[in-house]
């Protein structure tokens, strides 16, 4: 089960009203390599993972990803909450606005709605953990591109924190893969 705590994992700060930046950051709210995909991927893979240490890793990283999803939603919300119609018109956020107003909704920066086809659960620890490691690196790369386009120092600070978490998660999944390979008595090095 889950227990909600009324706090964020990191003090999210947004310095400006910036609907254009919000429309790009929504990539990590509902995009292929975003936080929602990450959270549901790891949490879905837990049931059939044979090693208890790796189940714990999937469980806890999956849970952390949901906290990151909340942080991304907070960035988008705070970048748009005070925006006037004039500030929204002509920006990429306008397409989101005509359907959802300022609500959060999981689609990617190009407007495609989130789909479960963004991840898989294969009941195969080696296949699943390789997907998880790739997912962390793809999320890290997305954060690099978002940092490149961010013109809000507060937003950049939060994006840097999230990028670091992907690096940390990649490390933990790499260790999980080694634990699985040791278990199978067929240690391989990649």
């Amino acid at each position, binding site marked *: 089960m889950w*227990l*909600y*705590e*009324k*706090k*964020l*994992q*990191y*003090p*999210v*700060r947004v310095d400006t009203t910036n609907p254009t930046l919000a429309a790009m950051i929504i990539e990590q709210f509902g995009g292929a390599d975003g936080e929602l995909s990450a959270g549901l991927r790891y949490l879905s893979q837990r049931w059939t993972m044979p090693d208890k*240490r*790796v189940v*714990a*890793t999937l469980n*806890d*990283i999956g849970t*952390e990803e949901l906290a990151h999803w*909340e942080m991304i*939603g*907070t960035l988008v*919300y*705070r970048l748009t909450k005070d925006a006037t119609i004039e500030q929204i018109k002509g920006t990429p956020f306008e397409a989101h606005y005509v359907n959802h107003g300022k609500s959060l909704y999981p689609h990617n920066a190009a407007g495609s709605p989130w789909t479960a086809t963004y991840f898989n659960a294969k009941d195969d620890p080696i296949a699943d953990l390789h997907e998880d490691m790739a997912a962390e690196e793809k999320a890290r790369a997305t954060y690099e591109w978002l940092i490149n386009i961010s013109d809000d120092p*507060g937003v950049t600070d939060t994006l840097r924190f999230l990028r670091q978490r992907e690096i*940390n*998660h990649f490390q*933990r999944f790499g*260790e*999980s893969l080694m*634990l699985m390979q040791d278990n199978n008595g067929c240690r391989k090095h990649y």
Partner: protein
Amino acid sequence: MDRVQIDRLMELMEYEFALTETALYLNTHPKDERALRIHNNNSAQYFRLKEAYEMDYGLLTNQGMSGYPWNYVEEPWPWDIDFIRI
């Protein structure tokens, strides 16, 4: 939320994050005694600070005890808090 409250919430968040880090590490290194010691020390401090914070400002989870009226709905939701650069 005044500055003191935000500072105390951020102190709590720092301990919480430290626990997240050591817990993730311990999941794949359950026999690392040094990491376990760090985790246990931070855990004790975290729960002490959390209890004091909730007594002073209101509930962070809906499982705690509240004065009248139910204070869980009073404090701002996290996305509405103005965290300022430290």
